[in-house]
């Protein structure tokens, strides 16, 4: 026969993957119409965090740049968009883009010292950046809302519907960005740029000898991931209607790290699933109070020890297994 067994199973796998994605998207679109508002809220948060985690995965897992302080860009986007709208009178839609852009600028700036250093030092530089931001926020006093938080950001509105009143609009906005930004990330990974990232990560000198410009790609991945994360930061604080330094707290940081690590560094779509899992878990643990950070710490340890390749590894195996099963069931085999 013309086809080898491997080719055939791949076709089944691809079919399964595509149909699953479409099915899930349909469910997500219909969800808020029939679902409990509480869960809609959680889903919304999950969309935001899934995008953040995916962008973080892009820079850390895919490009191999250990940027532990990536969450800082979340705060940069959140605060820059809010500040510019509250004090500068800019309306929220351009504010959203501005949040992303200023985060991208910050990413651009941070990328340069990171070019000269490797591995662990990048962890330290980015974490230092993460640690510095709350200090500036607190120093800002009434301008930035300090510890209390910055409020009174203008609401998004579309076709006359004020998002503040009709929260369901936020859901669809978040879902829309979730789909679009993930599509962009996906295309990046599949493109030549994505190949370059992986090549630089796995075999730097070889990649450079082929003419891959490490500096350029490192800066680009910083800019892209920070833009995406910054934009999500802006959306996040607009939804919550307040921007506080608490978005950089250890618990949020721990949650985000778990998402990236549990999902599987450098692999998709595990990151998306783990983002949902962690968001829901965090919510349910809210009553646990003091125990929560301890549990988060324990979960981080458990995930690394037990699933070094994360959920993505499991997802891949599941699809492969299902694909093989379908293949062996096809008619005419005997």
């Amino acid at each position, binding site marked *: 026969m013309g086809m080898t067994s491997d080719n055939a199973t791949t076709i089944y796998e691809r079919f399964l993957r595509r149909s699953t994605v479409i099915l899930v998207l349909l469910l997500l679109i219909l969800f808020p119409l029939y679902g409990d508002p509480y869960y809609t809220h959680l889903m919304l948060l999950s969309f935001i965090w899934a995008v953040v985690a995916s962008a973080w995965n892009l820079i850390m897992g895919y490009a191999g740049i250990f940027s532990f302080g990536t969450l800082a860009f979340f705060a940069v986007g959140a605060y820059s968009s809010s500040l510019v709208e509250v004090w500068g009178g800019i309306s929220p839609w351009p504010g959203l883009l501005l949040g992303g852009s200023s985060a991208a600028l910050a990413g651009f700036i941070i990328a340069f010292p990171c070019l*000269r*250093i490797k591995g662990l030092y990048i962890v330290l*530089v980015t974490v*230092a950046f993460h640690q510095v931001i709350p200090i500036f926020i607190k120093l800002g006093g009434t301008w930035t809302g300090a510890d209390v938080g910055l409020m009174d950001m203008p609401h998004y509105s579309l076709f006359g519907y004020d998002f503040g009143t009709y929260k369901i609009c936020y859901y669809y906005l978040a879902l829309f960005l979730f789909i679009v930004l993930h599509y962009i990330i996906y295309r990046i990974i599949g493109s030549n740029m994505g190949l370059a990232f992986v090549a630089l990560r796995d075999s730097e000198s070889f990649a450079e000898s082929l003419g891959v410009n490490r500096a350029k790609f490192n800066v680009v991945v910083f800019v892209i991931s920070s833009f995406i994360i910054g934009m999500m930061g802006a959306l996040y604080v607009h939804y919550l209607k307040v921007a506080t330094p608490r978005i950089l707290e250890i618990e949020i940081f*721990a949650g985000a790290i778990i998402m990236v690590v549990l999902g599987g560094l450098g692999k998709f779509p595990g990151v998306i699933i783990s983002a949902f899992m962690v968001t829901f878990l965090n919510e349910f643990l809210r009553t646990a109070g*003091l125990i929560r950070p*301890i549990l988060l710490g324990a979960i981080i*340890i458990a995930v690394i020890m037990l699933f070094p390749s994360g959920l993505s590894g499991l997802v891949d195996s599941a699809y492969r297994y299902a694909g093989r099963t379908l293949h062996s069931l096809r008619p005419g085999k005997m």
Partner: protein
Amino acid sequence: MQILVPLINVIISGLILGSLYAVMSMGLTLIYGIGRIFNFAHGAFILWGGYFTWFLCTKFHLNYGVSVVLGILILFPVGWVVDRLLLYPLRRKPNFEINAVIVTLGLAILLGNAGDVIFGTRFKTIDQLTEGLLRMGRFTITHHDIATLVITVAILLFLELFLRKTTLGTAMRAISQDPVGAKIVGINLDRLFAFTFALAAALGGISGVLIAPRFFITPAVGWETLFKAVIIVIFGGLGSVKGTLIGAFILGMLEAFISMYLGMFWVSPMWFILLIIVLFIKPRGLFGTWA
């Protein structure tokens, strides 16, 4: 003469702070130099030095000095166990460095807040080792500070002798220079990694005990001390014992001066600015060997 007195007081403060910081940061350097990983949980060990001492002092009414010794004795095996349980299995798998950072981060978060859960969130304080001041002409220095200085200098000397003169210490230096060579001469690397980690935990614990009387013991202390230790270690050069020593004294002296002449408020920003400067200008630090 008027400037001289406070100046000498500041220098003395700087020396005490410097030696304290040196003991505080040494564990981090040792783990990086020998184990080649960054121990995010270093601050947690410092914090728990404080917790153990507080617990032994208040619950069992033990003398501060005894509590110090017991605290160290407890933290050494804790460090050993952490290495065996968490790091040893990860060494055999790929991506060890990044996995080690993440797992120690998880441990730091866990241990950092466990104290609040186990001991309650009430403020905890420890009294100083001894009350009393020593006056020498116009200079004053508390007995506690003298004791701190004596203890830390003794520890640093002991460490130096250990690393230079003993076989085990030389083996540790050997691993940091060529791990394959260490294997070739028959050194059991896993056991030495565990020993290094345990030693680092004990050193962290000691510094936590010595620092404890100055602060309330809260989880934040774990992160703040980690932050300072990181800056000192980077400034001196990751993995260099000599660099950490010199870096700690320079920065301790700097903090003493800024604290005296600019005010306590400027101490925190000083550390941040230092970190940014070092990372942007000379990430290798003074004596660092890895970029």
